[in-house]
């Protein structure tokens, strides 16, 4: 189902993650964490036990990816010289600065403010109904698949290793979510109406992934063709119409979010902020 022969005409593999690429690592980590946090909301509430397990498995994979990336970002930061630290200071959690210890993965996840989060808007949207969850996952996983395919070529060996490990998981997420899109598109009248509604909600959030941010070291605009092709193939099988490209919401990559992210972070970060610098 997944097009493993994909070879985009991208830029040359990008350089190791010094300060220039640091925001990019956070962007990758934030994407994985935020969508993972959303998917975990299904735990105990899924439409069937097997699907409850499947969606929380995906969430676990995503949180695992986020951890590897935050860990790497923290390690890099701790090794930065003072100029590099200044260059990324706007992304460093303010509360952590009072702790007088090295930066850790959890500081990045639990202490950064909304404006410091760099995830795609698509990842933070509410889980909605099952149709919205699986369609969002499909759009996201299809993008992540091509993005991680590129990342595997990175000369930053840490990042390429993370991509290599993660792409196995992403390949499964893509297959699982594509199957659900097809099932709902070609299921009952109600499921078709719901997946169509979900498409109406989500489509304008898909374009952001392909608009490069200044820190982005992959030529994301070059991934769009393969992504559209993948979406079109699955939509054809689901008997869904591919919407025309229109106006896209954007801003998440620069820390300008929807109203939804603030609530997600308030909930997620509450213990770390209430009991600062405690060990859990």
């Amino acid at each position, binding site marked *: 189902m997944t097009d493993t022969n994909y070879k985009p005409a991208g830029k040359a593999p990008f350089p190791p993650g010094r300060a220039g690429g640091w925001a990019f690592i956070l962007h990758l980590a934030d994407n994985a*964490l935020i969508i993972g*946090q959303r998917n*975990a*909301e299904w*735990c*105990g*509430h*899924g*439409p*069937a*036990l*097997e*699907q*409850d*397990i499947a969606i*929380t*498995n995906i*969430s*676990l994979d995503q*949180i*695992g990816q*986020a*951890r590897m990336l*935050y860990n790497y970002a923290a390690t890099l930061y701790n090794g930065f010289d003072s100029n590099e630290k200044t260059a990324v200071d706007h992304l460093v959690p303010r509360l952590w600065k009072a702790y007088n210890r090295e930066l850790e*993965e*959890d500081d990045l*996840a*639990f202490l950064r403010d909304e404006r410091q989060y760099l995830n795609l808007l698509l990842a933070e949207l509410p889980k909605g*109904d*099952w149709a919205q969850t699986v369609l969002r996952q499909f759009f996201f996983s299809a993008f992540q698949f091509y993005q991680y395919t590129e990342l595997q070529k990175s000369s930053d060996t840490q990042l390429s290793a993370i991509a290599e490990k993660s792409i196995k998981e992403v390949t499964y997420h893509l297959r699982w979510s594509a199957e659900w899109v*097809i*099932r*709902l598109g*070609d*299921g*009952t009248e*109600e*499921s078709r109406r*719901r997946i169509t509604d979900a498409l109406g909600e989500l489509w304008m959030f898909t374009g952001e992934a392909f608009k490069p941010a200044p820190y982005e070291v992959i030529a994301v605009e070059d991934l769009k063709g393969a992504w559209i092709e993948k979406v079109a193939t699955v939509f054809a099988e689901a008997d869904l119409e591919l919407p025309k490209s229109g106006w896209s919401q954007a801003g998440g990559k620069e820390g300008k979010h929807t109203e939804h992210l603030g609530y997600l972070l308030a*909930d*997620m970060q*509450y*213990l*770390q902020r209430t*009991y600062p610098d*405690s*060990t*859990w």
Partner: protein
Amino acid sequence: MSVQELDKIFQDKIDAEIRIEPKDWMPEKYRQNLIRQISQHAHSEIVGMLPEGNWISRAPSLKRKQILIAKVQDEAGHGLYLYSAAETLGITRDQMTEQLLSGKAKYSSIFNYPTTTWADMGVIGWLVDGAAIMNQVPLCRTSYGPYSRAMIRVCKEESFHQRQGFESLLVLSKGTDDQRAMLQDAIDRWWWPSLMMFGPTDDESPNSQLSMKWKIKRFTNDELRQRFVDMCAEQVKLLNMTLPDPDLKWNEERKHYDFGAINWEEFWNVVSGNGPCNKQRLDARNKAWEKGAWVREAAVAHAEKRRARLKSEAA
């Protein structure tokens, strides 16, 4: 063969520790007793996902979040194996679900208590999973084959959860004053409900005697409860915390801990629907089931369309 003869063969097998398998003859009461017990156990796993699921979004570190999600997911898995084991006795998963959702079937009352702080996650691992393991380890040798095999898997995962729970409590116990206070408070709230998990005292337990004869159960409620108290009274010392029972003390003569009276009035009230979260838990399960109906229907409809297409292609 007469029922008496069949019954004799059945009891001889039980006495000789030979497992009863789905196709074997069994007394109707044995079958009903098992369906009740296994489905109650499965429901407990499923409802038990809710109080812990309550803290997934707020887990205080990414590692703890992963551990908690994986744990709740294991519970869904236990529910699955147990429903499958019960299905071998001639009841469907949908029928059992219906019994849970209508309030006809019971589940472990402990899940009708609220999880109000993070420390509850570790304390549930330690006390609630600990009590469950105490109840469940003997079930690995229970007389009905599919149940016994399901329980072997369940117990392996449960003891892992219990160790994880206790480990997270050790961290809290070495933490700040606020964290230690949070821990003591959680122990105080969960201790008595955990003791109630072993069920009524032996002389008040209606199903126990027959279950012992048929080796569905191997120890009485009071025997298991005593073992649990003895274990926890020692473990709590490792946390430098206390159990909320002024009567708890070592009895040299009995070689067991004595402990105070359980509030059975509370127990029976929570069992019969008056616990703090009974309604909330059942509502959550009903809502998930109802909101999932269109998804399950779509999956069935799509599978049928596919089958029909394959058939017409083959023709």
